[in-house]
């Protein structure tokens, strides 16, 4: 009897000892002379249960977690290889409510398959989209993506179909597909989980993008802090080349698409698309002025479709099941699903892919289970370090790009960082400016100097120096930054600052007087 055991290879699981757990299982099985196959799958996205080990049984995959090396002997004793009961038992994975309530479209395979197995990928609807795309004219592929309602998942939510249509219309000797995998927002990890857990989905999505806009060369710009993602991508790309899913003759179609991974150099602003292109060209990662848009003059001055990981990885599904299938999820102009990421002071952190339209409250409480500290949630920062801090009064807002814009916030890349009532929001506002000062590329003046001055003004404000003057100055500075900055780094830093100031003014009072 050869039992298949799943031990995640996802960074979150690795950080919690998944490699050691895997080794211990192998060792214990050997000691007991039991044959086991260990599959290193992606993560199911329930970080509080990692490392979560699954065993394939006749009833389905049974989950145990969080597993540590000290639990291995007792798991064997409890006959976990047949799904035996154990204090760490979580039951059938598919029936776990946290997962069952989700609508996993982009992440359908993540945690289920062996990320590096092309066969596994093919067995789970992989490359159906590409095969369909190969039967279509470029314009038809673009139309499908446009009809699906897919918008840029990196944060800007620009309609992907329109971007692709622009690139397709350009005449050029060489066009490029660039994947922005410089996922630097605090509290976000969906790109990483996907690249580590289902790299072929991204490769397939980019290949389809290449067919759609007439590009034969793609680059994935991955932040250097994601070494495991880089390994997984390179491994999968090598396999794809070997099996003609990449190269000069994709699946015998005579069409070409080549793909390469490039490692970033540790700059947050390189997640901004034009700075990313500069960096990819080997230059300092500073932001370019727009226009021209990258779709017109992007990488090396050529028309370039630059999209986020999740955007591109969603494309195979759209081509496999049709635009309508995807479009039927979601609300209003926010169609499809978004992999939300719960982080910070949260009891059940992890990845929740669900259709747009769910409330913030449902994510925080139904999925997240409130704070890890057990204290009330006071504020949530949605959409990364440039996102607004939202107070409890706004937790009933539905996750929808337009609804968030209406309250002066942004969904962004779908990350949320939770704070309990012990948070000092003046400190958070200061941190927003400090983060901007640390990560500003230094090109435009409002961001380059403004962020440093912002820290100084908040310091004077919280020290009670000329309070009214500093408050006025801080608001003026935020005006200058939001209206004058060259890119989102400087222009969105005022969101966390002003939301903290507006929703939590009491935190900006002189501490002694509070």
């Amino acid at each position, binding site marked *: 009897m050869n039992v298949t055991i799943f031990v995640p290879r996802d960074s979150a699981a690795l950080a919690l000892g998944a490699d050691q757990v895997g080794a211990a299982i192998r060792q214990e099985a050997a000691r007991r002379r039991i044959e086991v196959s260990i599959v290193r799958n992606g993560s199911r996205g329930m970080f509080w249960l990692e490392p979560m080990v699954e065993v394939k049984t006749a009833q389905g995959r049974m989950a145990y977690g969080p597993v540590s090396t000290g639990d291995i002997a007792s798991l064997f004793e409890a006959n976990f290889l047949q799904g035996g009961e154990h204090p760490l038992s979580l039951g059938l994975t598919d029936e776990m409510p946290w997962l069952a309530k989700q609508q996993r479209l982009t992440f359908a395979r993540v945690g289920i398959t062996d990320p590096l197995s092309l066969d596994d990928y093919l067995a789970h609807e992989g490359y159906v989209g590409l095969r369909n795309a190969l039967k279509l004219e470029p314009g038809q592929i673009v139309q499908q993506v446009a009809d699906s309602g897919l918008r840029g998942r990196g944060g800007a939510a620009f309609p992907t179909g329109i971007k692709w249509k622009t690139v397709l219309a350009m005449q050029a000797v060489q066009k490029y597909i660039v994947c922005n995998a410089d996922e630097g927002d605090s509290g976000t990890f969906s790109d990483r989980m996907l690249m580590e857990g289902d790299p072929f989905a991204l490769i397939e999505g980019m290949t389809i993008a290449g067919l759609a806009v007439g590009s034969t060369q793609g680059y994935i710009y991955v932040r250097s802090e994601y070494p495991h993602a880089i390994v997984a991508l390179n491994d999968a790309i090598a396999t794809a080349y070997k099996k003609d899913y990449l190269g000069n003759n994709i699946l015998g179609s005579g069409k070409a698409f080549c793909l390469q991974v490039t490692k970033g150099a540790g700059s947050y602003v390189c997640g901004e698309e034009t700075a990313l292109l500069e960096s990819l060209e080997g230059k300092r990662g500073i932001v370019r*002025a727009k226009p021209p848009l990258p779709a017109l003059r992007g990488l090396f001055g050529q028309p370039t479709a630059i999209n986020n990981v999740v955007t591109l990885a969603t494309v195979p599904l759209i081509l496999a099941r049709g635009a309508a299938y995807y479009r039927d999820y979601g609300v209003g102009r926010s169609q499809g699903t978004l992999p939300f990421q719960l982080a910070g002071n949260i009891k059940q952190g992890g990845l929740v892919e669900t259709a747009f339209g769910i409330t913030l409250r449902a994510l925080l409480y139904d999925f997240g289970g409130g704070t890890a500290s057990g204290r009330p949630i006071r504020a949530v920062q949605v959409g990364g370090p440039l996102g607004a801090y939202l107070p409890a009064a706004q937790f009933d807002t539905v996750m929808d790009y337009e609804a968030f814009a209406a309250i002066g916030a942004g969904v962004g890349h779908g990350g949320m960082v939770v704070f309990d009532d012990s948070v000092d929001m003046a400190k958070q506002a200061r941190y927003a400016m400090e983060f901007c000062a640390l*990560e*500003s*590329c*230094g090109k435009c*003046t409002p961001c380059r100097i403004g962020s440093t001055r912002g820290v*100084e003004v908040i310091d004077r404000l919280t020290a009670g120096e000329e309070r009214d003057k500093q408050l006025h100055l801080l608001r003026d500075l935020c005006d200058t930054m939001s209206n*004058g900055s060259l890119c989102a780094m400087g222009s969105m830093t005022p969101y966390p600052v002003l939301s903290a100031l507006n929703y939590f003014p009491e935190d900006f009072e002189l501490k002694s007087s509070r």
Partner: protein
Amino acid sequence: MNLQHEIDYGTPASVSDQLLTLHIDGKEIAVPQGASLMRAAAEAGVMVPKLCATDSLEPFGSCRLCLVEIEGRRGFPASCTTPAEQGMQVRTQSPQLAALRRGVMELYISDHPLDCLTCAANGNCELQTMAGVVGLREVRYGMTGANHFDANSAVPIDASNPYFSFDPAKCIVCNRCVRACEETQGTFALTISGRGFESRVAAGQSQLFMQSECVSCGACVAVCPTATLIEKTLIEQGQAEHSAITTCAYCGVGCALKAEMQGNEVVRMVPFKHGKANEGHACVKGRFAWGYATHPDRMLKPMIRAKNTDAWREVSWDEAVAYAAGEFRRIQAKYGRDAIGGITSSRCTNEEVYLVQKLVRAAFGNNNVDTCARVCHSPTGYGLKQTLGESAGTQDFKSVELAEVILLIGANPTDGHPVFASRMKKRLRHGARLIVIDPRKIELVKSPHIQADYHLKLRPGTNVAVITAMAHVIVSEGLLAEKFIAARCEQKSFADWREFVARPANSPEATEAETGVPAAELRAAARLYATGGNAAIYYGLGVTEHSQGSTMVMGIANLAMATGNLGRAGVGVNPLRGQNNVQGSCDMGSFPHEFPGYRHVSDSATRAQFEQHWGVPLLAEPGLRIPNMMEAALDGSFKGLYCQGEDIAQSDPNTQHVTAALQAMECIVVQDIFLNETAKYAHVFLPGATFLEKDGTFTNAERRISRVRKVMEPKAGMGEWEVTMALSNALGYPMHYANPAEIMVEIAALTPTFAGVNYEKIDRLGSVQWPCNAQAPDGTPVMHVDSFVRGKGKFIITQYVPTDEKVTPKYPLLLTTGRILSQYNVGAQTRRTANVEFYSEDLLEIHPHDAEERGIKQGDWVGIESRAGRTVLHADISERVQPGVVYTTFHFPESGSNVITTDNSDWATNCPEYKVTAVQLVRVTQPSAWQQNFKKFSRQQIELLLGDA
């Protein structure tokens, strides 16, 4: 005269046939498609505030002062990076914009020292101006936050460069300097280090400017909006109060410069942005190395002496001129009419050169006039006249912007013609292909963002074999431009040439052993030249200074005709002329066989015209060339020389031969601003004037005639043209011109290609390219458009004849010579400036292999011996040269570079074979005997100068 300020339109002009109409603050303006909103506004007379934008650089969008509002659009787009669109309604002023701009300016000033009143840029600071424009009244952040200017934070001023200083405390990080270094100069020496608030301008790897790759072109200084990068003279003297536009007196690029003045003192020279030769760029020489004009070595008094062992005696102008005239007449009486002659200078103005040749022909009564072009581009004049019909380059500099293939032969533009090199580099960065034919790995072979497609590293002296082999490939592979040839060229000469080049002996395979150029590479390069689109040839002295210099020039013209690369923009045959007015001095009749406009003295119609105008009979026989004059002096038949602004004792080959000839003469009149090497053999010294001290015109390598304008009175009292007049009058041939403009009137009247030239027109157009006449009243940017000047283009057979200067076991290496960026020609000017900090002696470049064989290490004294002589230089071991070839420059007289060069010369024009001298090297411990004698002789001559005082 006021201080001229040019309008800064913020972004470069766009070129398009399609005009867009839009409204800016209600004003309607039409601009070409591609123009920025900022440019459109400026053209409508609306100056949008800006700091990071300037119209010599691509828009950058960093300062955020130029934000505007566009009807129907959200936000505040930057006007510099937003293109104008049809029908746009743009507002440049609103309460929101005012607040935004003030907010940005408040941030700027919060990190800028408040020392305006004591700042060198005071009164000419864009930051100061913009603070005023946006109405900044308060810096609410205070001045005590994080900054880069207070005692604890400021990085020390970098004063390492002799001409400008870099004060990071004043830097606003607009990136203009970094962009200028990249876009304008193409050196990429500057960058921004760090990020965010710590983004700082850095030279090289955060080095001192002098230790970085910086070439001191001054482009960064020119665009700096503050006092961060600023001329040291401005720090010392203050801001100028008036200015004049003039023309650089260094190389043949002929940059237009703006001399900024306080009274009679130059404060700084800045490139003039409307100068068509340089379009607002300059180099370390023209921009900064003008201090020689007021150097204490300047000779300001006329002097005479009977023998060159006598002490000099200062005399009045009248006495000096009378003495010279008397001596010339005495010599002619004793030795004959032809025993005297004159040498004109390519550093003097057209008007001055014209007067000297007129003096020789009309007052001396012979044709013994020659010029320094004899030793540089005389083969160009000859070769292009024979093939195309005119002795000049075919294009304007701008033409390079349309070239798709650049074939660079025997020229080193980044050192010799740096401002044009920058333009060429820009074109290369934008995609033109490059073929370099040069024995040495010049900078353009590989430099930042530029790499030659082919570098044909030939053996010195084998040019003709290489160019003929390229022609062989073009003919034998069917790459000829048959239609062009049929329409534009002589069929007989073409057929003969075609038969000749097609011979197997001329194939790359057959010549490979001789030239050292791999046949496959040569074939590929020839194919690229013939088939790569617009192909332009640029060449220098590496073509002309050979025993077959003229043959090579004709080979180049053949190649261009055979591929149809003549007669339109983007193509052509372009000699890069060495000195500022070498084209002009040739145009002005400096050669013994030609009147102004390249008309032979034997042509009776032309001669009659001059005889009538000048009122004297003229000789129909050509006079002596410089080498003939030297030979005749040694024979005893040539005794008197009027040498204006040249230094043949340093610049001409085989120095010992030249100085022996000078020593043999009875009256040498030297007119120069310094006591040059030739003056050490002179009997009359007439102090000259610098280009700052007189009016006139220079003609650059693209036939562009530009004005030289007097910004100060002649320090010795007279300009050269006035002294030549006085000498002529003393000789009994009257000359009366009230000013140089009147001389130009005479030139125009007597020279068909100059018929339409006058000062009023040059002032109006800025400059004009000859031919300028009734057919081309505004001048001629590109020549030979519909037909060649000679009618049909003539192919000439270019049989390769190896030079006599061969390597032997005794002289196993070939010496070739060239230039360095910071020094100019004989160095008389640049050696008397801080440019010596960049290069203070001529070095001998030697390949590591050859050095190793001889036990020579970096910096060793190396004895260099040729058949002509021996000198000693310090070794610079470098792979820029190939094994078997050594290289040096000739900027310092004590180097004696020309002691080694030989009397070999071009068969047609006697242009010396500077580029090929067989030598042997040996490690030594002291300078050569010649050098020691030279030192002693120079010291004696200086003592003779001081003795009288």
